[in-house]
């Protein structure tokens, strides 16, 4: 388990990934962001910091997470072998804890006793509340009012962990609005509060820092693939909302001859306009502190995203993904709500695993892609989270569809 990352020259010293990234924030926040960057650069090369994080990963999170060969899912898809990187088995049930422990450790180093976070599906909120409880910090989580309703179990978990959940009614009441409100709160509380951003989005250094903390996913996958198969996989697949589990999986493979595919949420279909496929159907713009692809009108107003999965329901995406798209190093595809729900059902019944709806998008594409490939190829899917939080949505959708998934 290596928690120390190298940056392969990206981003540059100003936080740019080619034409993307940067720091587009009001002046009130700039000094805090510069302070954070300096603090992060210090711990990045600090062995004591990384050994503490490694110890937490091993004994608290339960890392390394398994790389599991999904035999029956593979048979059902009928082609390449499908392996699952089981981030759903982490403590708190998703990959988000990798990042929140890293940032909470950094917050403690910086002497900040209060943390805030935005959350969509609630996984990052739960992971932040968990880290805050572990370190005895005060925690406030901003969550869109619509997400509070559709991810009620996670709201209860955050409250039980001692966090305050602020329901955000503005806009569409989803992840974008939660992040707006978290940034506004941070503007007022910046002197003593650490903002734990949950994705590879936001102003520099967040995209780099979150990528580094999540790289443990790819580093482990690499070691596990080499041990189990004696070679690297042919294709890596992960869902992309903001893109943190995908970036964490892809990053340690960027220099290898391994295909990378990010799966966005096509919602009700890209042609309907009700989707969250930012890289597939968006244009370049600035949102939440970084330049990247966004869903926007031709006048530069951000438009509502839609996905059955609250964690993917976001009209922006991390800037490093924008660069990987432009360079062609990774490809980005999209999967609809109904395809994701079907994949949820398929994994549940073939493997006895209930995946998060976010991860179900990656699974749907993986089954399609595996079917097209010969049996000696290997596809790794990041199973970024477990599906317990989505049971109401999935059973509701199943009822609408006449009982079956």
């Amino acid at each position: 388990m290596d928690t120390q990352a190298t940056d392969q020259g990206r981003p540059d010293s100003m936080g740019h990934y080619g034409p993307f990234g940067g720091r587009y924030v009001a002046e009130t926040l700039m000094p805090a962001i510069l302070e954070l960057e300096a603090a992060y650069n210090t711990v990045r090369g600090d062995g004591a910091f990384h050994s503490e994080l490694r110890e937490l990963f091993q004994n608290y999170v339960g890392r390394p997470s398994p790389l599991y060969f999904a035999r029956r899912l593979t048979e059902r898809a009928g082609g390449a072998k499908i392996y699952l990187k089981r981030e759903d088995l982490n403590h708190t049930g998703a990959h988000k804890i990798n990042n929140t422990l890293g940032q909470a450790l950094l917050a403690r180093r910086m002497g900040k006793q209060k943390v805030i976070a935005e959350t969509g599906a609630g996984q990052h909120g739960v992971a932040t509340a968990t880290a805050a409880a572990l370190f005895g910090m005060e925690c406030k989580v901003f969550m869109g009012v619509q997400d509070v309703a559709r991810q009620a179990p996670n709201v209860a978990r955050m409250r039980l962990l001692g966090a305050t959940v602020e329901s955000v009614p503005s806009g569409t009441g989803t992840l974008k609005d939660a992040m707006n409100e978290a940034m506004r709160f941070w503007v007022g509380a910046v002197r003593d509060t650490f903002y734990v951003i949950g994705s590879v989005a936001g102003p520099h250094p967040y995209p780099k820092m979150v990528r580094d903390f999540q790289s443990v996913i790819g580093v482990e996958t690499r070691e596990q693939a080499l041990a189990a198969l004696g070679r690297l996989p042919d294709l890596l697949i992960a869902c992309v909302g903001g893109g943190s589990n995908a970036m964490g999986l892809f990053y340690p493979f960027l220099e290898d001859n391994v295909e990378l595919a990010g799966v966005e949420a096509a919602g009700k279909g890209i042609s309907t306009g009700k989707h969250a496929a930012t890289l597939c159907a968006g244009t370049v713009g600035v949102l939440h502190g970084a330049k990247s692809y966004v869903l926007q009108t031709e006048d530069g107003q951000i438009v509502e995203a839609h996905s059955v999965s609250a964690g993917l329901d976001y009209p922006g995406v991390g800037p490093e993904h924008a660069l990987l798209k432009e360079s062609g190093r990774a490809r980005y595809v999209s999967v609809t709500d109904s395809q994701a729900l079907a994949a949820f059902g398929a994994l549940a019944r073939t493997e006895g695993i209930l995946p998060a709806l976010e991860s179900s998008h990656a699974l749907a594409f993986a089954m399609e892609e595996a079917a097209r490939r010969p049996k000696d190829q290997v596809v790794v899917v990041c199973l970024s989270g477990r599906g317990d939080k989505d049971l109401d949505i999935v059973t509701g959708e199943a009822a609408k569809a006449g009982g079956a998934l």
Partner: protein
Amino acid sequence: MSRIKETFDNLGKRGESALVGFATAGDPDLERSLGVLRAMCESGVDVLELGVPFSDPTADGPVIQRASQRALARGMRLSRAIGMVRELRSSVSAPIVLFSYYNPVLAYGLSRFYKDALAAGADGVLVVDLPPEESGEMLAEWEGRELDLIRLVAPTTPTERMRTIADQASGFLYLVSMTGVTGSAGLDLAEVAAETARLKSVTELPVCVGFGISTPEEARAVARVAEGVVVGSAFERLIEAHGGERDLEERIREYTRSLKEAVQGAGR
């Protein structure tokens, strides 16, 4: 000489501070917004800040968020805000500063934005989420630099950084009165005085202070220490409360006059 510099020079000769008024373009609707802005300028606003609404205003409190939503719902956009500058310019002599987030400007086109804003009669531009670190891209498209790019400075800005920002600035410097979003409560006048003095120690440019100033008493106190007093959310509160009423413009005039009197009577 730029209209902004001329305005501050003239006021300075009389020992007066400027009343800087902010309103969101297109609030409550396109027509009445023009009436509001004219009323502000005719009754005492020395510098007009015209807010371009953005869907995700992360530096703004609830009042300007709602104003932005109303304006967007009525079809306001950057091209129309520039059109409003052109219309105002025929009757308004006060400098006009376009106040925007970066994304609408980027979508409009950086070079086209500069040319169109200048041709319409704008004098300055303030882009809330564009710190000096990121503004090279935009300034590279500004041929001749005839528009002032107004820079923000905050209480959290270290003095050395203030100096760097001030060295690249023109027109005036906008000092954020508190660590918070626009329209926040809890204005601390002693802190404003201290922060203004700290900023003045590194610049000769006029300093305008804004965020959370709403009463004539607050405006007077700030005018004693700074060359300009910015009032924004308070105008938007009036528009929100009386936007549908016939006497909206008269209320705006009355409120503007009360602020102007306070600022003039401050005696800097």
